[in-house]
């Protein structure tokens, strides 16, 4: 595995008024890997994604991408550098068709294509996620899993180097989960680095090269999935201290 560090979070702090969502979080993501990010509810996983993607400016600490300091950079700048993310609850543009949703990313992403070119490419992206025939539809006509895949397609249209997936499998039935996992494997083969936030620890463990566990805004364990899941600190975080001790 390529040891180049693509993304580095150093001592990231994120405070909302009195609440400290991220407490000196450290995380490194290697180029080409699939990193699973798990943790109990409220551990700060989505907050971390929001900070990395530029939606929140961290209260403290540093974010480095490809060796450069990008702390506090605007989301659109990060998108042009090659960071894309999906949302836990899909947020498509409701007044655009499915195709135009993806075309937006082609138009304003790294290479800024024209409308016609963007639409052409959007069609290819939709085909990749299996939504080719749905391009002309309004977003409300899609099922949940289709919206999630649309979300993914839109992120892919940015031609990202780093893709942050926020609970992309949540709410999907087993067949759809398999489809999702297959897409993610394909993305990995194309060379995209993936950070994969999930509640479904089993699915994440199967797919990830490394697993990072957050608890109360801190990284409590990082490493190969099997080792991490047996780490007493991790068990304690999920199931309580007494269980871990037993």
């Amino acid at each position, binding site marked *: 595995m390529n040891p180049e560090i693509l993304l580095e979070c150093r001592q990231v702090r994120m*405070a*909302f*008024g009195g609440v400290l969502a991220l407490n000196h979080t450290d995380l490194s993501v290697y180029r080409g890997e699939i990193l699973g990010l798990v943790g109990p509810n409220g551990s700060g996983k989505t907050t971390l994604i929001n900070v990395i993607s530029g939606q*929140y*400016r961290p*209260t403290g600490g540093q974010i480095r991408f490809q060796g450069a300091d990008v702390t506090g950079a605007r989301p659109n700048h990060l998108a042009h550098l090659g960071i894309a993310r999906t949302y836990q609850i899909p947020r498509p543009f409701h007044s655009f068709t499915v195709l135009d949703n993806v075309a937006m990313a082609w138009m304003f992403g790294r290479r800024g294509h024209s409308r016609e070119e963007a639409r052409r490419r959007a069609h290819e992206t939709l085909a990749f996620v299996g939504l080719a025939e749905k391009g002309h539809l309004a977003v409300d006509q899609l099922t949940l899993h289709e919206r999630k895949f649309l979300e993914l397609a839109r992120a892919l249209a940015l031609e990202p180097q780093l893709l942050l997936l926020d609970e992309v499998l949540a709410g999907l039935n087993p067949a759809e989960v398999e489809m999702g996992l297959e897409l993610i494997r394909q993305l990995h083969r194309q060379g995209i680095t993936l950070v994969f936030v999930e509640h479904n620890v089993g699915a994440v463990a199967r797919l990830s090269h490394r697993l990072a566990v957050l608890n109360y805004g801190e990284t409590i364990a990082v490493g190969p999935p099997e080792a991490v899941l047996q780490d007493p600190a991790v068990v304690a975080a999920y199931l309580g201290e007494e269980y871990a001790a037993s």
Partner: protein
Amino acid sequence: MSPDQIILLQSALNGILVGSLLGIVAMGLSLSWGILKIANFAHLSFALLAAYLAYTLIVDLALHPAVALLLILPLMFGIGVGVQWLFLHFRVSTFTSLLLTFGLFIVLENLITYVWSADTITTRQALPPALRQAIRFPPPLERFFVLPPDLLAFASALALAGLVHGVLHHTNWGRGVRAMAEDPAMAQVFGVHYAREALLLSGLVTATAGVAGVLIALKMPLYPSLALAWLGIVVAAVILGGLGNPLGALVATALLILIQNIWSVRMQPSWAPLFAFSLFVLYLVAQPQELRRRWQGRRRLAESRREARP
């Protein structure tokens, strides 16, 4: 004490008194905006409408102001319920309510002009003598005076503020209403029926506009664009005092007018309106980061909550 100082202090005193009167209007708007998530600009028009109605009742029908108040309150309550019903029925967002109530504002201003004409009118002559006699302070402050309507307004404002605060924080109903503002779906689990409470609250809030209106009719001359003249101060006060914080709105209004009055004594009065607006703008621009995120969070929450509303 020099004449200048006397003028200054009297001006400050008047400022607090008038400020408390307008503060009643600001309280209502603050509650409406903070709890019902309706940015109701027509609230100012309702107050003015009540003032004009009070004028007709007191001057044309020679009724005592207290009687006028008794007649106006239920009418205002009804208007509040009606308007809120429309908002609920159409599942109006806070922003849409802004547009709608602005439209209503224009309609009401023109309605008032149509019915009562654009001339400035006053109830002064028809008031019982007790209300027209200036009350002087006891010595050594005998140079200062207040007019009974002002005193009445000040007392009413304090009483209402106390009442509102007491109800919101020390009664179950009040707590339920505040919970409703935070999380309608959750509140419903605890037995707070959103629609019913919203209608009730809106009725009560508009009734306070009625109280303000009657007091305004007693205190000052009326003209149709009065509501527009109040708009800046009231909105600034509501935001500076914190949405949903009626005491804050009251205090902010009083302070704003107090400062405006003091300014007008020394400086050119025509610059005075600038003050409230600039303060309002600066306050919002200067929000610290956490408060910014809370605004952001509030907005997204409010949007998603609208779906959850029973």
